[in-house]
């Protein structure tokens, strides 16, 4: 019994020492067009010089889960290694006709819709593999959307630490406070991935939440 307690204690100490060496799987989840890829790109570009994926005004630009291995984020003298996982936006409906408004050809719109539905299934399947998740929301949109609640509810059920990001804070219609009110139990950071606004607070929160990763 005493040996077991002793071994567990040393395991804990060693884990804490080498935690920053761990490749923490950091997922980006949220509804379509909230800026998940823009944020992941901003981080990857800053620390590796390369982007993770393409961005577009047309919804469902990301239709497959995409990764960037071993991204070392350095902040205020600390450093941590992450596996960045950018996921397709989750929604309850996909209509190819919505893409026609963006002048996408009918044939392409249909194939984009098909890939989008498969991407959503892929996103959900990946939930189990995450260590830490950033839920990216568009701060110009109503946060009381069931999909947002469903994503966060699933992360809580799986005991995965969550950080809520209120993106597009540079826009006039942005309302970061409304997102804070909608999710009072979670840390909410207002940022602009496009202009790199308030990323210091974002990194601070990520480092803090990383300590909760099991």
């Amino acid at each position: 019994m005493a040996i077991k307690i002793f071994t567990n204690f040393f395991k804990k100490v060693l884990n804490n020492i080498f935690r920053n060496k761990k490749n923490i799987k950091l997922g980006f989840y949220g509804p379509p067009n909230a800026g998940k890829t823009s944020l992941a790109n901003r981080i990857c570009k800053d620390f590796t010089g390369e982007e993770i994926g393409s961005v577009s005004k047309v919804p469902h630009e990301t239709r497959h889960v995409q990764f960037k291995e071993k991204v070392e984020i350095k902040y205020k003298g600390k450093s941590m290694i992450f596996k960045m996982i950018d996921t397709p936006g989750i929604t309850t409906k996909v209509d190819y006709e919505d893409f026609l408004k963006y002048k996408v050809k009918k044939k392409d719109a249909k194939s984009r819709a098909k890939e989008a539905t498969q991407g959503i299934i892929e996103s959900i399947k990946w939930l189990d593999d995450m260590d830490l998740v950033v839920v990216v929301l568009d701060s110009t949109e109503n946060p009381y959307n069931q999909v947002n609640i469903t994503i966060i509810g699933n992360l809580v059920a799986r005991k995965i630490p969550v950080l809520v990001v209120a993106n597009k804070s540079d826009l006039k219609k942005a309302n970061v406070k409304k997102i804070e009110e909608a999710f009072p139990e979670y840390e909410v950071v207002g940022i602009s991935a496009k202009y790199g606004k308030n990323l210091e607070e974002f990194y601070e929160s990520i480092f803090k939440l990383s300590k909760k990763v099991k």
Partner: protein
Amino acid sequence: MAKKKRVKKIKGFAKQFMPYQEIKHLGSTERIKKILKIVFGNSILILQGRLKPEEETRLIEDTMAMIGHVKDFKGVELAVIGSGGAPDGLFEKFKQRIVTTLSGADLGAITIIGPATVVKEIKQDPKKIELILGK
């Protein structure tokens, strides 16, 4: 006299209320199957209680799998009105947990699920839900 405004009628949809009792004994797969069967029939389902978070994602997965396979199906609109926020105090929390455990669900909540071809949008805030219907 004011002219009567022409309102476009939405043909062929119904509302259906389902007490939680009706799906309580079912497993998650059967539960979602039953819900989607109603939605495929162009009905808006008003369900007493709410699904578990993993059932909600399963519902989204199954919905996505059916788009392109069921004629004119473009997905669903989904919303849940909670039972009035988190209970205050330890005793209230304990009481709510017992009620939820005994009934198997948060019976104070209401879940609304409708086909996206009928329910264009569900506008939601903490206290109300607004259904916008249309083709």
